[in-house]
């Protein structure tokens, strides 16, 4: 056994990049909410960027490493302690057996990701290890972790994992932290409280005065927020005339407007179809920013074109590829 769950933390689940190909059967994509942090954590362990990781919200987790391992934490929302001493996020860390990992409160952020060299043993259902609780699919028996769970490390480690481990001699210590790290720098105009959106399919259903309010007012993340979606507080967006919406596809990032005029941003466990007008769509590059918002946070929407959103996404994918390549080069010279 490899990782003993002493305290699970808040809705802690195993997630990978998500489950594609089954939405026509009503199966949500799921996967990590903040895929940037998930991929970064994996790269720091020498894994494939889409290997399965642990996702946990805020603080409270206490996990005991029972068998030596190379790990990395990325994301935000908690302060990492290793054997009760502060340890950094965004670094490769080699820990010896009987090491306690705990997540304590932090001022901001919401979701932390722990990757382990070789990943975790998890149930693969419909081609993905991502947990989807409603249908008990994937991960650890299709559910969130609970106290007493024992997770096993994945068996297949890449050559790069071993090289990173070898670069971190323990020398009698509990742990060895790499003197290099990797951080994915978000776009320069990203200040953390601005979410970039483009027009949704039902944009024209709303009056101009209503749409102006979308960009001139702040919105808040309410307590009714989870992996399925965030219900927002703020000025209501009412339709001037009632229109019949025939249910159609929705996805992570869709901003739906309910009958009461509330906005809901759909997240990783989004239903595959929905019947509310889709006012706007969150730019894919800002979904990780949404994933790191916690209830009570306030933010503004900013409009960009879908072409701009597509260019930003292409740029982001290139940057992550570059990080992957530079880590690989560092250990294969």
């Amino acid at each position, binding site marked *: 056994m490899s990782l003993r769950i002493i305290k699970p933390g808040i809705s802690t689940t195993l997630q990978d990049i998500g489950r594609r190909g089954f939405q026509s059967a009503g199966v949500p994509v799921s996967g990590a909410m903040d895929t940037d942090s998930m991929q970064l954590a994996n790269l720091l362990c020498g894994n494939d960027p889409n290997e399965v990781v642990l996702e946990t919200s805020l603080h409270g987790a206490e996990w005991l490493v029972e068998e030596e391992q190379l790990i990395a934490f990325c994301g935000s929302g908690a302060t990492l302690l290793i054997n009760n001493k502060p340890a950094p996020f965004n670094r490769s860390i080699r820990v010896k057996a009987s090491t306690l990992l705990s997540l304590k409160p932090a001022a901001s952020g919401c979701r932390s990701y722990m990757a382990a060299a070789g990943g975790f043993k998890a149930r693969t259902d419909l081609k993905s290890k991502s947990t989807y609780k409603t249908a008990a699919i994937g991960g650890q028996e299709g559910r969130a972790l609970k106290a007493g769970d024992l997770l096993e490390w994945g068996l297949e480690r890449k050559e790069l994992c071993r090289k990173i481990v070898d670069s971190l001699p323990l020398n009698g210590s509990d742990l060895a932290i790499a003197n290099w790290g990797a951080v994915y720098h978000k776009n320069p105009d990203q200040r953390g409280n601005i979410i970039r959106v483009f027009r949704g399919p039902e944009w024209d259903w709303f009056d101009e005065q209503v749409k102006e309010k979308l960009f001139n007012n702040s919105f808040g993340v309410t307590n009714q927020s989870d992996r399925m979606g965030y219900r927002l507080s703020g000025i209501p967006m009412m339709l001037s005339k009632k229109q019949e919406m025939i249910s159609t596809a929705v996805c992570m990032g869709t901003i739906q407007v309910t009958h009461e005029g509330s906005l809901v941003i759909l997240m990783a466990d989004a239903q595959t179809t929905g019947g509310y007008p889709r006012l706007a769509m969150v730019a894919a590059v800002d979904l990780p920013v949404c994933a790191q918002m916690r209830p009570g946070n306030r933010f503004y929407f900013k409009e960009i074109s879908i072409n701009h*959103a597509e260019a930003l996404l292409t740029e982001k994918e290139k940057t992550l590829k570059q990080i992957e390549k530079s880590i690989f080069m560092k250990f294969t010279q």
Partner: protein
Amino acid sequence: MASRIYALNEQALSISFGDEISPQINNKVLALHQALQNEPFTGFVESVPAYTTLTVYYDLSQILESDINGPHSARQIVTGIINDILSSLSDSGELNLPQLQIPVCYDLSLAPDLPWVAEYCRLSIPEVIELHSSQVYRVYMIGFIPGFPYLGMLPPSLDVPRKLRPALSVPAGSVALAGRQTGIYPFTIPGGWQVIGRTPFMLFDLYQVPCCSLAVGMQIKFTPISLEEYKNQIKH
């Protein structure tokens, strides 16, 4: 085929074939869905049929890599591919629409909202059962949760509103009504539709291929069974 194509997001396009619920429009959705299943283009991820739309998800970087005459946006490239496929599909193409009988037990112990539905529709309980089980329904869409079929259309005399407050727990297999639709809950979950019976039929099973027993376009008829038959057939 007449259609309108719009972007859902950076990696998805929706093709809309009309603005009303009809078998003809849903057939067009299905024809394009099947064409893409049979011959997926490079970068195709999946397609999701709904009442009047097919939504096509694709991989941005794979699409852009395939752009040899560029630069084009991924949307332009995929729109071109979809238009080519649409022009090769005929409006009157033969579609395979399998038929399926699904047993339903309408016993009051499994049908908490049946008395309310009968009263609301000014019908007797046997009349509601007779009406519900004498129609042939089409699967227009699978959505809401894995395996949940949206079946239509119910006769106007069974048109009932959703519950004002969703029930906290609707048992798996519950057969329910809302508006002109009837559906089946594959999992025990909170839900707002009016429950008038329960089926022992498995709608979603991870360990069977395909995992979802129903698919868009299928023709469904409900067969009433007794409580005893239900108990004998129940597997979930």
